[in-house]
């Protein structure tokens, strides 16, 4: 049976008429992606909440696209009427990562922004929140960035029990099995 995308199409139309410089993609049923540049995120979120009834904020997450030298921020919001998950995605510069503060729309964004600030080092100007979220006294590179060398840090900081030196790298085998390539930046983790 052919799936009909009536409400998704409607959303597409509404967003397309309201905003010009955005790319909208209907991924599957009840899932719509919106790719926007960073200054459009706040208007889209506001518009979706106030006009289209997307009043439930689900998630804010961050992806480190180290290959493109970018961070991707994903805001997931949801409407109880249309039951559509609306993904608002934006990419920001990795060298100077700042993003607009959006916690005035939904208060719970506060927590996500604190986490992202701590784990990825993305600043939210104008955002007032507790400085520390999970980590205490962290001085190194934010640990969720992919250029943070976990193993080196662990070897420097923590002790090692004798007899656990073999440390076979299973990633190589997994990569070979699934036919993928380990990217260059991750090569240095391998033990050989």
């Amino acid at each position, binding site marked *: 049976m052919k799936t009909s995308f009536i409400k998704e199409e409607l959303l597409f139309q509404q967003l397309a008429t309201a905003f010009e410089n955005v790319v909208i993609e209907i991924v599957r049923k009840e899932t719509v992606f919106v790719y926007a540049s960073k200054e459009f995120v706040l208007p889209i979120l506001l518009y979706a909440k106030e006009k289209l009834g997307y009043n439930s904020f689900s998630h804010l997450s961050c992806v480190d696209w180290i290959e493109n030298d970018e961070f991707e921020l994903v805001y997931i919001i949801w409407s109880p009427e249309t039951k559509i998950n609306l993904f608002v995605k934006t990419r920001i510069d990795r060298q100077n990562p700042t993003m607009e503060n959006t916690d005035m729309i939904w208060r719970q964004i506060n927590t996500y922004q604190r986490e992202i600030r701590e784990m990825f080092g993305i600043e939210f100007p104008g955002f007032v929140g507790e400085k520390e979220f999970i980590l205490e006294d962290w001085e190194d590179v934010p640990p969720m960035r992919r250029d943070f060398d976990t193993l080196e840090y662990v070897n420097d900081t923590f*002790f090692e*029990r004798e007899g656990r030196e073999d440390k076979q790298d299973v990633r190589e085998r997994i990569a070979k099995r699934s036919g993928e390539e380990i990217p260059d930046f991750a090569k240095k983790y391998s033990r050989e």
Partner: protein
Amino acid sequence: MYNDNNAQTIVEYIKNFTRKNSLFMLAYGTGCGAIELPATLTSRYDAERLGVRGAATPRQADLLLITGYLSTKTLKRVIRVYEQMQDPKYVIGFGSCTINGGMYWDSYNTIKLLDKYIPVDVYINGCMPRPESVIAGFKELQRLIAEGKADGATKYKENLDWYRENQKKVLKNWPLVEYNW
């Protein structure tokens, strides 16, 4: 009584006997091991028959259970709790995470070797150790206490500088309160 190399006076013997048979434990539910404790304490395995019972605060406790992985953030509190306990006191490390890091061997915020930071009297192996092994651990600790060998606290006092150095390496900006009892 136990072996001749380790002759004890009668007072010491009584003390050790009561200590071994009355362990007030502070179960510091740090990791997944905490879920094994209800089973250990309740009807099926019944640790209370060995004299093990829960204590609510470190002031009353004899035995500190580190049940599983310890993040550096938790380590601070564990050290504090350990130092608030009164002598004589014992520590049991639960599971492979406390022994060698276990599955968190390369985690940036989980310590791998508990006995570098606080003295551990008994380790219980496993991921997680089942209640049977937990009780075996209690038994082992009781044997050590009876023989007067569970002297982790004394070791900690004697090598305080060494322990402090290790702790400071992980806990950089944390005010470690002076330990002097």
